[in-house]
């Protein structure tokens, strides 16, 4: 028995609640000492920018995790949305508003498809979204026969594309408000705030958490479980398509890519988010912090010239620590 039985659990509670935030602060201080350029407003903004796309995808995954689902297709939805934005502007000559609407529609449609697979066809979520992932990986290549999309590209039929990326579209990825805040960071923050509010304070969010915790009990409490699950996948799909739009706007072309790294980073961020504030459940605030955590580490390590393979290792280490934190420490206290 410890000498002060009361002090012990209180310290432990505090450690669980704020441990991850303190760790994040510590890492920021460490990098600032090692590399003074790290600690500046501009630098912080860059960290936010580097994680904005990952974080947006991670917020979508969070929505599916809340209903005890999972969405493996977000990476390929983002990649497809990037291709769709590029294709619609460069080849069909869409305006930026039309292109954005097209991508959001695509994200919603994929989310609906995933939701129907899971809810109606009763395919287990991991398998259903894995199938969608492969479907999209192939689909995004079909219109261009595997080529990347850029202004003035040659089409499979031999003609040259006449459209171009709309200036206002590129603003989404490149413009800075007040010369400091990138639009993508603003979108990430707004989306995080919206999803956080939705999950924590609205009745719809409450029911989603209930479904994730005990689906049968929620159904017997009158919740239309199927509709909520489909909605969660649609939130995920639309988030991923927003990520893809920003990606296209930043890169300025439609790159052929699988988006698998986006998926892995986003899932890692959402899982790390479980540990933030010691809540041991998916939550939007945690997801944002989780993404920032990884972003800070990667930016700091790059500044210190750490080799690229060190970065994957560090990502893995953070994830494992967060998972241990979630599944052993927090559970021990709950009990």
């Amino acid at each position, binding site marked *: 028995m410890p000498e002060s039985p009361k002090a012990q659990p209180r310290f432990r509670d505090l450690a669980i609640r704020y441990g991850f935030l303190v760790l994040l602060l510590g890492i920021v201080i460490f990098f600032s000492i090692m590399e003074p350029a790290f600690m500046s407003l501009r630098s912080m903004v860059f960290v936010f920018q580097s994680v904005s796309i990952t974080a947006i995808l991670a917020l979508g995954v969070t929505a599916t995790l809340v209903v005890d689902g999972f969405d493996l297709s977000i990476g390929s939805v983002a990649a497809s949305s990037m291709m769709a934005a590029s294709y619609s502007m460069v080849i069909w000559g869409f305006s930026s508003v039309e292109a954005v609407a097209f991508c959001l529609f695509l994200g919603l449609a994929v989310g609906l498809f995933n939701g129907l697979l899971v809810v109606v066809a009763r395919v287990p979520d991991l398998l259903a979204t894995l199938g969608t992932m492969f479907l999209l990986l192939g689909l995004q290549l079909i219109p261009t026969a595997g080529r990347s999309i850029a202004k003035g590209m040659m089409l499979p039929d031999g003609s040259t594309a006449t459209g171009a990326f709309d200036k206002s579209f590129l603003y989404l990825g490149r413009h800075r408000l007040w010369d400091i805040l990138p639009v993508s960071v603003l979108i990430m923050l707004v989306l995080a705030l919206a999803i956080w509010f939705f999950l924590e304070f609205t*009745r719809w969010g409450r029911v989603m*958490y209930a479904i994730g915790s005990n689906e049968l*009990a929620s159904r017997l409490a*009158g919740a239309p479980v199927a509709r909520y699950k489909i909605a969660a996948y649609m939130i995920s799909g639309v988030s991923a398509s927003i990520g893809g739009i920003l990606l296209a706007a930043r890169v300025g072309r439609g790159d052929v890519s699988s988006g698998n790294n986006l998926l892995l980073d986003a899932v890692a961020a959402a899982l790390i988010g479980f540990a933030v504030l010691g809540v041991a459940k998916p939550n939007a605030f945690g997801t944002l912090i989780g993404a920032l955590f990884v972003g800070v580490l990667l930016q700091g390590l790059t500044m210190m010239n750490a080799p690229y393979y060190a970065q994957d290792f560090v990502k893995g280490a953070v994830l494992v620590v967060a998972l241990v934190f979630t599944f052993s420490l927090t559970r021990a206290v*709950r009990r």
Partner: protein
Amino acid sequence: MSAEKLHEASVSLVLDLEGVEKSFGANKVLQGVDLSIRAGEVVVLMGANGAGKSTLVKIIAGVHAADKGRIELEGKPFQPSTPAAAIRSGVCIVHQSINDGVAPDLSVAQNLLLDRLCNGETELFFRPGRARKQAAAIAAALELDLDLDRPVHELNLADRQLVSISRALAQNPKLLILDEPTSSLSQREAERLFAIIDRLKESGVAILYISHRMSDIRRLADRIISLRDGTITGTFEKPLNYEAAVHAMLGHAIEVTGQQVAQRGEALFCASDIRLKPTSDPFSLVLHRGEIVVLTGLVGTGKSALAECIFGVAKPAAGSFELDGIAFNPTDPGDAIARGVFMVAKDRANSSIIPGFDIAQNLTLPFLTRFSTAGTVRLAREKQSARAMIDALDVVCQSEQDVLSALSGGNQQKVVIARWLSQPSKLLVLDEPFQGVDIRARGDIGTKLRNTSDQRATLVLTAELDEALEIADRILVMSNHTIVGEHLTADLNMDLLMSQISGATAMAPSEIESLQSTYRN
């Protein structure tokens, strides 16, 4: 003592318990149980939910250790530390839940040898040919007439159970414990099981048979032991007095308290010509405002099926419902709730509780629309309502922000009941609301139900007769998915009730009809 005498003693007495006690925390589950079973004897253990049957069985099976008392197996001290140790000593159990006893993806033969495989009593390498021969030998000895190569998941429930029993018998047990083995069997299948039990008896196996079913008990029992609240309340030798055994099991509840029947209002809910299964007999029932009706009957007789139909989870095979004189066909629970029909589902851990939510969030889950403005939950209002309900039901907790998984079972159940009492309803169905709840909490819940019952109809489903008698104005008896009897608690014919529950007698539908019509008037 001569060796012969020792042998003699061990043959006659397989299991001998004396003064066995067991507590979980402050809860004394067994308070000095004496029990002995002789070789070749079937002892039936009767006891209501929470009487301590399963704890007793778990102690014999090596899952729990007794706090106090002496246990001997064939005259030697017996303290199995694990279930595997108990099996090695010759004590085998066939569980109530059939799928606990079989590995569905393995073949019949592999299932029969499962214990040997798991015990590591085989050679290093699994030799299918040899194993099959062993399995065939076991099957032949037990007259098990099944294709040994079929995977178990292709078998029907009764055959699965047969495999499960055969698996236990493959261990050559000295003592076989059967926990409600007929609860999912048809009459014919049960008869096959009884034949096996007869054979085992002849070969000198001691059998401890746990059941409520009077038909089983009449057919099998050599001796009946009634357990109530952790003590043996009666031991009945042949000739068996069944009534007395049931009375001993149910205890005080038999003294009908002459409960005051509430003022009954108009008919609120009618079910007409309902068939729960296409093959079951139709029945009708009427529930009135202000009354508490208990539907009782053994486990698996269709009580929950009826509740599910009323709550929109399932559809009856035939028949119709009316609520307030208007046709009532809920498409899903949400629809039922919107119409004012609430249900406290049985098995709260699976079907009621959101474990990660706090008390307040659990309470308001079905009624979030009423607690939110423009979609945003009004936390202050939610908290206020939660506090009121916590007070009303005496939920023991620190605050309304306690996570539900941190509460005791009884308090969790109070929260679940409070959820459905927190808003006015027209019909409240409670399916086994007292499951896993201690006497005090049961009393609190019963009182609360009674005090709030005047504006709605209340239907309580329970398999436990004493629970039924505590709160009912009227008791309906269900057997074989239809209603076979109806009683006013005020003038109860206990013997008739018992025989209806056990499936021996059913009122003719016309009788029920006439009874109901007298109530109506």
